[in-house]
């Protein structure tokens, strides 16, 4: 804090003010008081901003003491609402993707990266329609990890299934293996990535349960926050291993399912009402 100490240097003190009856010490004290106040006023907001911007970055390895997951109540998921999708896109910089000039709309729809999409299901016998957000299900036994030839597709200790883009060679085997169509491939050069979500051409990517939020000590995901902000409260994020967490209590009290539970993947994302 060099600049805080600077005013203490006598050579920088103001000369005694002849209009004051008090001695030079008094005027110097006044100057020091003002200087200290001004310095604090300049420095303090910077510290507040710093504290806000950085959060609480993780210093220790993630452990299997937690397993992060989501519970979606499809009864509360509103037809036509895209709040979770938009929030996901903004959180991860996917809204910065642009269609190539020579691409048709149809091709763009199939090629742009989508981490979270809305799915509408209809029971053909009864006609009942359900809406649900579909994303990486963060399986305990992820098929994408099984098939990855380079080890780029991996499951973090806290249950988040991720792609290490440093080792991904873009073979897209994981996209074939995923039963949930959760993964996307980046076909074009990306030039406007966000600092918190590095992403580039030639790699596969998918929902990572807002991993940068996890590592900064925040307690929710962008999709869950957006859904809650609208009052729908259809998405609940939490720790499946903590019996006291909201998600564990909700799972204990209400019927829920895994999508494709026949595959025995023990997904971290559960759905109620389907």
């Amino acid at each position, binding site marked *: 804090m060099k600049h805080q100490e600077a005013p203490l240097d006598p050579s920088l003190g103001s000369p005694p003010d002849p209009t004051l009856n008090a001695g030079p010490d008094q005027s110097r004290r006044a100057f020091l008081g003002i200087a200290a106040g001004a310095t604090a006023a300049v420095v303090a907001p910077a510290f507040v901003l710093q504290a*806000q*911007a950085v*959060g609480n*970055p*993780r*210093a*220790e*390895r*993630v452990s299997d003491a937690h397993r992060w997951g989501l519970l979606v*109540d499809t*009864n*509360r*998921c*509103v*037809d*036509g609402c895209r709040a979770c999708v938009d*929030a996901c896109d*903004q*959180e991860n*910089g996917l809204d910065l993707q642009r269609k190539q000039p020579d691409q048709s709309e149809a091709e763009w729809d199939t090629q742009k990266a989508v981490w979270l999409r809305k799915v509408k299901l209809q029971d053909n016998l009864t006609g009942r*329609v359900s*809406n649900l957000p579909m994303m990486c299900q963060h399986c305990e036994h992820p098929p994408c990890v099984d098939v990855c030839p380079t080890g780029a597709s*991996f499951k973090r*200790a806290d249950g988040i299934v991720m792609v290490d*883009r440093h080792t991904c060679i873009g073979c897209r085997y994981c996209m074939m293996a995923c039963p949930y169509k959760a993964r996307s491939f980046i076909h074009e050069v*990306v030039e*406007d*990535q*966000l*600092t*918190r*979500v*590095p*992403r*580039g051409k030639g*790699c596969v990517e998918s929902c990572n349960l807002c*991993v*940068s*939020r*996890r*590592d*900064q000590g*925040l*307690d*929710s995901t*962008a999709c869950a*926050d*957006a859904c*809650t*902000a*609208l009052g*729908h*409260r*259809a998405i*609940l994020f939490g720790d499946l291993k903590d019996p006291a967490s*909201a998600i564990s*209590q*909700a799972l204990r009290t*209400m019927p829920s399912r895994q999508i494709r539970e026949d595959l025995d993947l023990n997904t971290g994302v559960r759905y*109620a009402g389907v």
Partner: protein
Amino acid sequence: MAIAVIRVSLVAVGLVWVLAAQTVLAGDAQRYVKPGSQAAHSAACVEETNFMRRNHMELIKHQRDSTVHHGIRSTKHSLAGCVNCHVSVSPEGQALAINGRDQFCGACHAFSAVDVNCFGCHANVPRGGLLSPAALAAHGDATAGARPSPGQFMSDTPGPATGRAGGQ
């Protein structure tokens, strides 16, 4: 004798040239830290400067594995930290891509003819923050108790919206 004098003077001239060349090179290296960047105001990098020149890639590579696989984000060897500190700003206030040929990463890598691949995926200017504005807003709300409690979640009473739009 004359030959010896000529020889000694040639060696002396050579030494002077070597010294001059080193000074010029050192001056060039100095200029890679861009004026106006945060780094220009710092006494030192996260490690000693000469160590960083030779080993920054090892530090970044080690850091990337501990961050991606183990979630460790608190250490000082992060690429985002490099960019944040070394990025320079145009007179119009725009951050300049750090891998540009006249910028901190780009200039040295062009000089040493080594491709820098980091910025195929990583942002080459600080962009978007470590946390999204939405995350910061929600984090503020969380302390005020806006997160749904287990009783609140999925119950029909408290929410303004009542779930599915289509009636059953």
